[in-house]
């Protein structure tokens, strides 16, 4: 088979053809995977919500409300059982992590007590700051069942009640910052 000549028309046609076929194929695949991608994202979210609030029978991810705080947005996911609010999961954040941004899901009971916390996204140092995730250590369990009204969300070094992760004061401090932000927002107007 002889090579096609590099005439201008040939070149443009070839590129157009390839791009067209590629786009078509991708468009098709996109449509195909759109569903599963959305589903997996939702599953992750729901999973996080389920972890941090007591049992519920509604779909919190469909009843969200938002609140702008500190130049970013907190998202609230109310969880109800038998039409009674059993808890609210709050997606909160901090930029003070050792490697910047950390995204947490904090579950509050209606009175503001922390039910549980799960880490959605972080870039903290493996072996150190990443101990904030449940997978690596039980460190974050100490928040469970504490009400920030009595339990000061600050590391002990900052005269708070939280024991910092050994050698990761910054990550611990950032974690507290995010939880504190969620709590304040929740108490100020996030309770619905």
């Amino acid at each position, binding site marked *: *088979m*002889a*090579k*096609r*000549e*590099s*005439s201008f028309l*040939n*070149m443009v046609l*070839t*590129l157009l053809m*390839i*791009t067209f076929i*590629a786009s078509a*194929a*991708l468009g098709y*695949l*996109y449509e195909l*995977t759109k569903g*599963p*991608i959305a589903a*997996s*994202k939702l599953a*992750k979210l729901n999973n996080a919500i389920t972890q941090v609030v007591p049992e519920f029978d509604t779909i919190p991810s469909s009843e969200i409300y938002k609140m702008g705080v500190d130049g970013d947005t907190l998202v609230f996911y109310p969880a109800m059982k038998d039409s009674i609010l059993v808890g609210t999961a709050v997606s909160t954040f901090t930029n003070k992590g050792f490697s910047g941004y950390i995204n947490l899901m904090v579950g509050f009971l209606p009175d503001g007590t922390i039910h549980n916390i799960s880490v959605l996204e972080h870039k903290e*140092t*493996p*072996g*150190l700051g990443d*101990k904030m995730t449940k997978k690596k*250590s039980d460190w974050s369990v100490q928040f469970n069942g504490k009400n920030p009204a009595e339990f000061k969300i600050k590391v002990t070094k900052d005269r708070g009640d939280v024991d910092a992760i*050994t050698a990761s004061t910054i990550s611990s401090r950032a974690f507290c910052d995010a939880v504190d932000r969620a709590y304040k927002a929740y108490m100020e107007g996030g309770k619905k």
Partner: protein
Amino acid sequence: MSQWKNFSKGFFKENAVFVLFLGLCPTLGVTTSAINGMGMGLATTFVLVMSNLVVSLVKSQIPDKVRIPSFIVIIASFVTMVELLMQAYVPALFEQLGLFIPLIVVNCIVLGRAEAFASKNNVFSSIIDGFGMGLGFAMALTILGGVREILGSGTIFGLNLHLFPLDADGNPTTMIVFVLAPGAFIALGYLIVLINKINKKSAK
């Protein structure tokens, strides 16, 4: 060249990472664990095989001057497919590998094989070549990921090896450096020395 040779060259003699020093960014970037390395390697293998296949199929239809742009489009399409598929079916791994998935498109191995091999050889050889180079790449990434995981986390494929003494909190005291950037460079440097030695020995 026998197809076996064609296939196996990618593992040692022409290993992309250890011998040709290609595709180094993902090699260093994602190999914090063996499983990540393997995942990245397999994703790259997929793109490599598919792009080799398509390129060798259409090679005679493409005018020389637009060869490279055409290859890039073909490769980029497959990369996007991998992106979409991983996002849909292995979201956790996709998150771990992050930026490096779209960056497969600029991985020199892929374009390199398309240009140097697939555009000159028949479909079957090209597929074999893609598999060989891809799996060799995956092997390199898995080895590097494994080494870093063992030293840096004390585990292999997530399995605790109980190599390191525990600290006061009951966590193993591992060499964290190896899961961080410096450890990646250092580990790869020494691995290359080792592989070169082995290659030289086997050549004799």
